[in-house]
Structures are given as C-alpha cells and as structure tokens.
C-alpha cells in the first residue's frame, strides 16, 4: 500500500551542496527511481538525475542509497522500512556535475586507452568458429552494463584521485580479461594490464564483485586469473612462448 516516504536527497553542484529533506508519496512495488521521478514531477522540476531504461539494462541511474552503491531502478522500496528516511547521494568517486549526476568521463578515458580487439582472418567460408564453452567466459564479462558501481566502490580510487591516472579500475580489468580470454584475439594484453592499467594496485578485496548488479564475479573470474597470467608471463618466459605457439594452432587450449 502507498505511504509517504521521507527522503534526503543531495542537491548542489561542483561548488558545493547538501542534503535536502523531502516527503514523497510512493506506491506498492515502486523503486527508488520512481520516488525520484515523482519528486521531479511535483516538487523539484530541475532535480538532476541520469536514467534511461528503468529496467537494470543500461546502467545509467547509479547512485548511493543510504551510502550503498546501487542502481536506483533496481532498488525496491519494499527493501526498506517505510518509517526509515532514505538518503540518496551521487557516486562519491566521480566529480559532481549537479545533484545526483556525476562526471564519469574518467571511465570513457580509460576505455580509449585499451587496445581494441584484434582477430585473425576468418575461416575459408568467411565465417568464424568458436565453441560455446569458449565464448561463455567472455560472455559473463560482456554482461557488464557499465553502471560504474564497481569503479565507484573500488577503494584504490574511491578516496584517492591521485591513483586515477595509473589505474583503470575493475570495469576495465574485466575488459582486459574478456579480450585476453577471447578465442579469436591475437594480442597479448598481460603487460598492458599490469603496467598501463595498474592491475597490480588491486588487492582483491572483492568490493567490486559485491556491488555488481549483474552478478559478474569480477574478482574471481576476471581479476585473479589475469593476475595469475601476468605472473606466468613475468617469471616464466617459456610458459609465455609456449602459450603463444599453442594459441596459433589451437586457441581452445588457452586458459
């Protein structure tokens, strides 16, 4: 049944701001984003918020709800006590533009630094063959909706802007791992991941995995295997050489 929800929403811009109190009527089955939209339509027409699909598929409406990184469209009000005041603040790791909207351009810069997928030639009939079990590892990582909650929660950069130039963050470790495990990619990305992307700065506290709304096992399935492969490469050149040779003849045996 409907009730009046007490909310505190951060409002302001790069020059500063603070929490503002609102009371907004909400209905059964609604999510935090519904409450924010109702605030916009009835009490604060210029309340800035990013959103698109409202279905957990685009990763636009990331914010912190009671201090926890969440997609507002997937956070149901029924998960909270109706008597509780809900606090909604912008992602802390990125500079505020206005209200709940932050400048996430850091992520787009990191994306540009990453060498693109580089496949070999297709089969004689113009098609490419890969086995389902070989694409599934990459498919898990490609579920990523780029909500940047993992980036936001990662303590390497959360309160450490100084680490940002040298650190790509979990979202892009995921991408390195995806390309590294891609059956058709011909690059070796381990040095890049380690040196340019700062994989070594991650000390696998798994915070990123915990906040991923897609349930991707970022640490276990992407970061740790990447770290292991970097170590192979660094300490055993023969392993590296062997893997390169094998890759050309039978890419399926690559791990």
């Amino acid at each position: 049944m409907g009730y009046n929800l007490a909310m505190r929403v951060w409002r302001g811009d790069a020059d500063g701001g603070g929490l503002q109190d609102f009371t907004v009527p909400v209905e059964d089955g609604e999510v935090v984003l519904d409450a924010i939209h109702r605030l916009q339509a009835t009490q604060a027409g210029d309340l800035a918020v990013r959103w698109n699909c409202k279905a957990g598929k685009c990763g636009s409406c990331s914010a912190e709800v009671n201090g926890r990184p969440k997609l507002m469209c997937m956070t149901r009000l029924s998960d909270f006590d109706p008597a509780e005041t809900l606090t909604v603040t912008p992602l802390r790791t990125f500079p505020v533009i206005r209200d709940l909207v932050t400048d996430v351009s850091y992520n787009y810069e990191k994306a540009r630094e990453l060498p693109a997928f580089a496949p070999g030639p297709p089969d004689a009939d113009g098609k490419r063959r890969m086995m389902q079990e070989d694409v599934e590892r990459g498919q898990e990582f490609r579920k990523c909706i780029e909500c940047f909650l993992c980036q936001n929660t990662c303590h390497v950069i959360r309160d450490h802007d100084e680490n940002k130039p040298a650190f790509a963050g979990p979202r892009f470790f995921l991408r390195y791992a995806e390309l590294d495990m891609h059956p058709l990619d011909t690059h070796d990305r381990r040095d890049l991941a380690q040196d340019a992307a700062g994989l070594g700065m991650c000390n696998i506290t798994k915070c990123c995995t915990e906040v991923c709304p897609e349930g991707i096992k970022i640490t276990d399935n992407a970061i740790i295997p990447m770290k292991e492969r970097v170590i192979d490469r660094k300490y055993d050149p023969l392993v590296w050489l062997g893997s390169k040779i094998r890759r050309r003849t039978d890419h399926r045996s690559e791990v």
Partner: protein
Amino acid sequence: MAEFERHSYDVVVIGAGGAGLRAAIAAHEAGARTAVVCKSLLGKAHTVMAEGGAAAAMGNLWPEDNWKVHFRDTMRGGKMLNNWRMAQLHAQEAPDRVLELETWGALFDRTPDGLISQRDFGGHRYARLAHVGDRTGLEMIRTLQQRTVALGIDVYMECTVTELLKDGDKISGAFGYWRDSGRFLVFEAPAVVLATGGIGKSYQVTSNSWEYTGDGHALAMRAGASLINMEFVQFHPTGMVWPLSVRGLLVTESVRGDGGILKNSEGKRFMFDYIPEFFKAETADTVEEADGWYDDKKNNRRPPELLPRDEVARAINSEIKAGRGTPHGGVYLDIASRRSPEYIKRRLPSMYHQFKELAGVDITKEQMEIGPTCHYVMGGVEVDPDSGMSIVDGLFAAGEVSGGMHGSNRLGGNSLSDLLVFGRRCGDGAAEYATSVAASRPTVDEASVDAAAEAALAPFAESGEENPYTVQRDLQETMQSLVGIIRREGELVQSLEQLAEMRKRLPHLSVEGNRQYNPGWHLALDLRNMLVVSECIASAALERTESRGGHTREDHPGASDEWGKINLVLTLGDSGEVQLKHQPLPQMPGELTELIDIQV
C-alpha cells in the same frame, strides 16, 4: 550574432544507438570527418534494451533459409506495405552485417558447430535471430561502441540537437546544447544522419526510455522532410503489467520463441482462436502440431503464439476485454510448465532476473502476467532505400526514425538487423554526399542559429503556469486512451482536438532552476517534438480507414486493397501545421512479387 562553440565535420550523426554508431563507423571508414551526437552517455541508447536478437538469413541452423525467405517473411509481416527495396536490401545484407560484428568482438551464442546460433521468433519461417541469451542489444551496442572508440570517432555525449540548419534547400549543420552545462553549440556539416529512434514516450504504457521523444521525426519535418507510415505503431504483445512501477517494461518475444505460451484466466491457450486467414496456411491449428514445430519445422507449422506481433497484441487485448484477463489486467505467459528451470535460466537470463528483482516472480516456477505495451513506430522519415537520404539534400535517416522498411508491422528481430544494414548504408550515403558538395559547402545561416538559441531559452523567460511534466502526462494520457491499439473515428477526432489544446499550452511552459543539467528544461524542449509526432500519428490514423498491421480501426475492420497501394505522407505547412497527402506505394518488380506467395 551570439558566439557559440562551433565544430566542423563532413558528417554529423544524431543518435548513438545501433543505427547511429553503424552509420558513424561507415562514414568514418569512407573518409568523412565524422561526429556522433547523443542525448545520453555513450552505450546507454535504447538499442541496449533489445533482447531477442538480430534477424539474418545466415542458414546456420536451417540451410533452407536464405534472403528470399527472409524477404518474404518481412513483407508478409508488414502486410505488404513495406518499401520492397528496403526489405530486399535488408534481407540480402543482414548476414554480412551480423558477421562483421563478430570481427569487431561480439560474442554471439554458438551452434554445436561453432557458428552463430539462431533462434525462433514470430513471423520468421526459420530460426534466424543471432543472439546472446536475451541481451543481444547490449552485445550489439557495446560492440559498436568499442569499434567507434577504437576508430577514434568524436562523440558528443549528453548533447541534444534542437534544430537542423539549412543553406537554402540543403542541410548545413545542426544546433544543440550540452545537457550538463546548458551551453549551446553549432555543428557545421553538409550531411546529417538522423538515428534518433522512436516516439514511444508519447504513450503512458511503453517499453521505451525517456529518450524516445521523436526528436528525429520532428527535426526532419521542421527541415522540410516527409514522414510515412506514421499511423503504424507497434504494441508489443508482452510487456510487464505489475507492479505498476514497471508497467510496459518489455518481456522478450524469445520467451515464446523458446517455447512459452499464452493463457487466459481460464487456463485456455487462446491463440488458436485468433489465427487470421492471411496466416492460416502457415500456422499450426492443434497443440500437437504447434509443440512439434520447435524441433521439426519440416512437418509442422508455426505455433500461433508466434504470429506477427500485431496479431498477438490484438488477441491479448480481446481476451482482456472479454473479461478473461488476470488480476492486474493482463494475460498469462507461461514457460515454467514447458521448459526446465536450467533451460529458462540459460536462454532467458535477463527475464529471469527482471521478474525476480522487480516483481518477485520466479519465471521458472510461475506464470508471468503480461499485456501489450507501446514498443516501436514503423513510421518515420521517407528515405531513398539505397542511400538513406530524405527528400532534403544532405539529410539522412536510419533505424527506427526512418520509415518504409517494416511497412505496417515490424517482425521481431528485424530491428537490430535494420539498424546495421541501413546504418551502414546511411553512413556511406552521407559520406558520399558530403564529398559531392565539398567544393561548394553549404554554410550555416547565422539568423537561424540565433533563432534556435532564442527558442531553446524560451521556457526560462516564461513565467506561465504550465509544468512540462504535467503537459507530458496529459499528452501520454491522450495518446494512450484515444490513439492506442484499437482506434475509432470519434476518438481520433477527439485526440486531435486535445492535441491542438496542448499546442496552445506549449508557449507557456516554464521551468525552474538554471541551465545546468536541468531535466525540466530538457523535457520542455522535447515536448515540442513529442507533440508534433503525436499529431502525425493521430492524423494518419484518422485518415486510413482500414485495419492493417499496427493500425486497427474498430470502425473499419479488415484490410482494403485500395489502401494497400497507398502511403500517407506527412509534412509541415508554413505555420507548423501537419499536412497529409496520399502517395502510391513503390511498385515491386515481378521477380520479387513471385517470392511472396511461395509456401516454404
């Protein structure tokens, strides 16, 4: 003359969904200096929500499949109102466009032979949709996004174009604003590609995101281009109905493609009662045959749940109206009793997640409640099929914003392939056109720039009482209740009267706050576009006195042969009024006509 930020390109693409990104890649590769301008962050466009797959007759599972069968299915699905040339190009080129995505890093689901897997969908003779579980759109947009970034194409994110600029009869650029700062900017470019998607936000119950305000449709009209097929709006048969918060949210057709069936409150599998004459010969009329089809397509006909979307949506609507609906006003979609939990979770992971998280329903154990939701507009900018250019020199359109490809009804899966095929053609066409006018490049008219800036700022100057959110809600109510899935003359007349009233309210829209990331202001500007496309839909719907595809007139049931030869063409008059004329459908050559009636 005010000083604004300026950028000069050969080709400016508006919109960064599948069509826009594919167009930008093509234009860039053709050597044009290219920019993409989009309202959201890169990678968030509506394509991301597409679930089922991209239709392409690759023949990976059914060697019998080829472009001719795909062409036939597309034309029949569109009830023969499609632009035949677009349908032909689409069917012929879709396989190459899908394979190309793989070269750029896409990871589609595989067949046992290691090829791209293909799934069944409504209206398609063979399993034809290349897919990744039920998140194909995400895979497609991410692939195109990563390709765009790799090529170093300039992307203007969170930037809205409010006006196209012209030099005489030719396009010369575009005017817009940065959403974060509200600052204006001018693009100088001889070629502009519209790839802005659809119009669904004019309806209350829709699967579309806030971006779908018909920007490209309206920009094209204001620049002198024409729209066709606007009366045809696709209501997807299966949207969520409960909780209210997610009403309209898409439930992919793959649920039915993978074995799901529709039932009414009496538990009856009702689609067998709604097989139209047009599709009788290719639709199963017994449960046994329908269920046998999934594994044996040679000896069984397609289940009626997989009729084209217009047919299924009307059937659901009729069941609900007859009082056989669910408690929340839908019907049941059941896959739990038909497939194993493992199969459902593997094939439909997002649907499993979506119902679990948002409705507390486990689709491996329970039925879903679903109902029709506004999903897609078949109508759009009238374009040359081969190059994608509109009747205005230098203005191109690709994807949902263009018209003709899908006729009166689009088949599921034909949208993602449409984006790729015509996105590329438009990018090529725009680059070629830009080269052809390079010697005498059209210039931006400064008076138009100043006028555009003034128009954009009007809502701040106005201290009137009109709240943009309220006007939007009223517009959605009008379109939902009077220009919805079933239409009647009286209601359409009434809708046009109400829309005319809203037109008078627009100048009095007023917004609070400043220009910095101000959604109220953004909506006030988008409303202008939503209103004009709504007027187009209602006018064309009133004019077309027959029922066909995504246009059902209760007072004119059945399709008429006369109307089957006519496109309704919409343009804007000098004072901004919607004008409508009849135009004969392009004549299909004989060798293609022969393909239509072949029983395959």
